[in-house]
């Protein structure tokens, strides 16, 4: 390792916490295997993005302040296994609280030491080979907020390339939205569903038996769609793959 980082904090995100605990454990495993101490502030909840995206900014601010307080108890870098929640904390907290006399500076401070998981591995630690192994053909779906918000263009691909036994398949329209969009998937479900069908068609056409991404939100959406189709294609967070050794 090329940095002097010894300890990190995990912000696991509400969806991983409640729906995909194994993914959270995989992230911890990987970070610990790299010799890092992982802190997990138990008071953490949700970053508030659903409220922010729905336009309920006062509510979002309250949640942002709460999360900042939780994360400010340690100086360690904050790792988030989600491009979307990462984008929220890294970019939108700063904007939302720009005029808050007490929180503008802490929001900025939290922002500068927050990293999406793959970004942290590749860009900060300089690690791409985690000695992982897997079997199967994998297609990568680039979630929008990670891709366009945080610039996660190459990091996940570089990590996946090093996984022994994994055959990468080109996913047509890999960088196109899956139609999730948070509450959009419920409020405008017919449009969301139509966009999803295109993504699913592409996934099936890719010849992969597994779809991997960096955001369980989109993956949950894709998995739900594949299951409705009766497809046997697996859906996994990148940490789930990288953990296998």
């Amino acid at each position, binding site marked *: 390792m090329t940095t002097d980082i010894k300890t990190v904090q995990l912000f696991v995100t509400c969806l991983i916490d409640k729906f995909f605990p194994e993914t959270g454990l995989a992230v911890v495993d990987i970070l610990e295997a790299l010799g890092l101490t992982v802190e997990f502030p138990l008071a953490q909840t949700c970053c508030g993005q659903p409220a922010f995206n729905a336009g309920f900014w006062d509510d979002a601010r309250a949640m942002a302040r709460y999360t900042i307080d939780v994360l400010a108890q340690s100086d360690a870098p904050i790792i988030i296994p989600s491009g979307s929640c990462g984008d929220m904390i890294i970019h939108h907290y700063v904007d939302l609280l720009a005029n808050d006399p007490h929180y503008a500076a802490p929001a900025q401070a939290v922002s500068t030491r927050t990293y999406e998981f793959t970004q942290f591995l590749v860009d900060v630690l300089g690690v791409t080979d985690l000695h992982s192994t897997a079997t199967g053909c994998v297609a990568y779906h680039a979630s929008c907020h990670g891709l366009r918000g945080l610039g996660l263009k190459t990091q996940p691909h570089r990590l996946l390339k090093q996984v022994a036994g994994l055959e990468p398949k080109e996913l047509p329209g890999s960088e196109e939205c899956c139609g999730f969009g948070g509450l959009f998937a419920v*409020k405008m479900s*017919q449009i969301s569903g139509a966009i999803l069908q295109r993504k699913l068609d592409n996934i099936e056409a890719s010849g992969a038996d597994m779809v991997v991404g960096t955001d369980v939100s989109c993956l949950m959406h894709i998995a739900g769609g594949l299951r409705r189709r009766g497809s046997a294609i697996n859906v996994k967070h990148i940490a789930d793959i990288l953990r296998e050794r």
Partner: protein
Amino acid sequence: MAVSNVTFYERVEEALHDRQLQTALDISTTRFTTGRQNALAALPEAEALRDHARRIRAHTIAHLDRYLAQFADSVERVGGQVHWAETAAEANQIVAELALSRNVKNVVKSKSMVSEELHLNQTLEANGMKVVETDLGEYIAQLAGEKPSHIIAPVIHKTRQDVADLFRRKLQATDADLADVPHMTALARRVLRSEFLQADMGISGANFAVAETGSICLVTNEGNGRLTTTTPRLHVALLGMERLVPTLEDLGVMLQILARSATGQKTSVYTNIITGPRRTTAGQPIEPDGPDELHIVIIDNGRSQILGSELAEILYCIRCGACLNACPVYQQIGGHAYNSVYQGPVGSVVTPGLYGLDPWHELPQASTLCGACREVCPVRINIPRMLLKLRSETAEAGLNPDWLKRGLRLYRQTVVRPGWYHLGGQLTSWLSRKIADNGWFKKLPGPLSGWTDHRDFLAPAKKSFSQRWREEREQ
């Protein structure tokens, strides 16, 4: 702006079930997006050029008062006349009075989005004039009594059979006329050509106006923009007040990226730059042709409202349509669902900006916030930021459905109280695992049913990550 009784959701349903529209959208948006990508990839230093174009637009809008004044002076210097319209009604009145005072009977129009904002055709027709759209797509839409469904491809929603039927009904076309698309096009050319020869007034929009020279620039592929501004003795150009660039050199920058972003063409076939009416000496024309009078109507119609707000950045827009083609929502629902002149991502900002959130507040919600629009926008407009801003204004105005307001209130109270949050989580998990089928739901109740209409929903895990961490690590 007229609002139909059909809701946004109904229009969406209709669009999603229109097979022809779906095919047309697939073909056109794919062709335009790949065309755009290739064209920009082949343009030397395209990214730097986009940055530069953005700086030009930002600077211009920030000094719009100055540049508009300069533009008007320049137009008058070359013999054109400038009119100022704050509202649609004023603009319509200006054009109608011009037409009436000059005994205009026949009007030809080349594509102008502003004129659609104004509903100018109705005004002129009410004054006894014949108004003909001359862009082939717009002409077809006009014959069919429909609105254009795409900024640059107005009738992508129609098949050639639809058009053939329409020509048969409205133009008494014969089988020979309708043999194939070139024949149909030739028929339209003949019909429209006679309109051009008889027209007293030509009405155009403007892609850009140049402050330093008083020029307006119109780009078309068909040439109707040139005919509209050449054959009639009177040319009226409608100019949205934000369409300025300071210098001719700046116009060059914009033209390098406009067509490439719009259709993937390196250039449109005709880039038509008009500076004043045909030149005269001592009252006698010295140029062989061109209009004897040029009137430019500078139109606000809600734009200054946008200018004085957080949405002002949308005024950088050069109306290329790239954000429509790249938008996953537009790709599914097409233009008509927006029910507005301005569609897709740019429309979802402009429409509520011009006319207010009520009843347009659904438009900013019709987005996944994926950011594709911002990525392809030649002048890098941060559309998602403004959609979010409009959503926050919608929430402040209380325009959201009750279930959402109640749900979010509960959610907020829970999130800032970890005790409630985890207890609530455990309860939901316990309850849902009782009723879920193999860990998944096929159907959710109430507003959440939207999700399960299209995909299964995963039940929460038995034990959350926090629980496991606490149990495994924190003894």
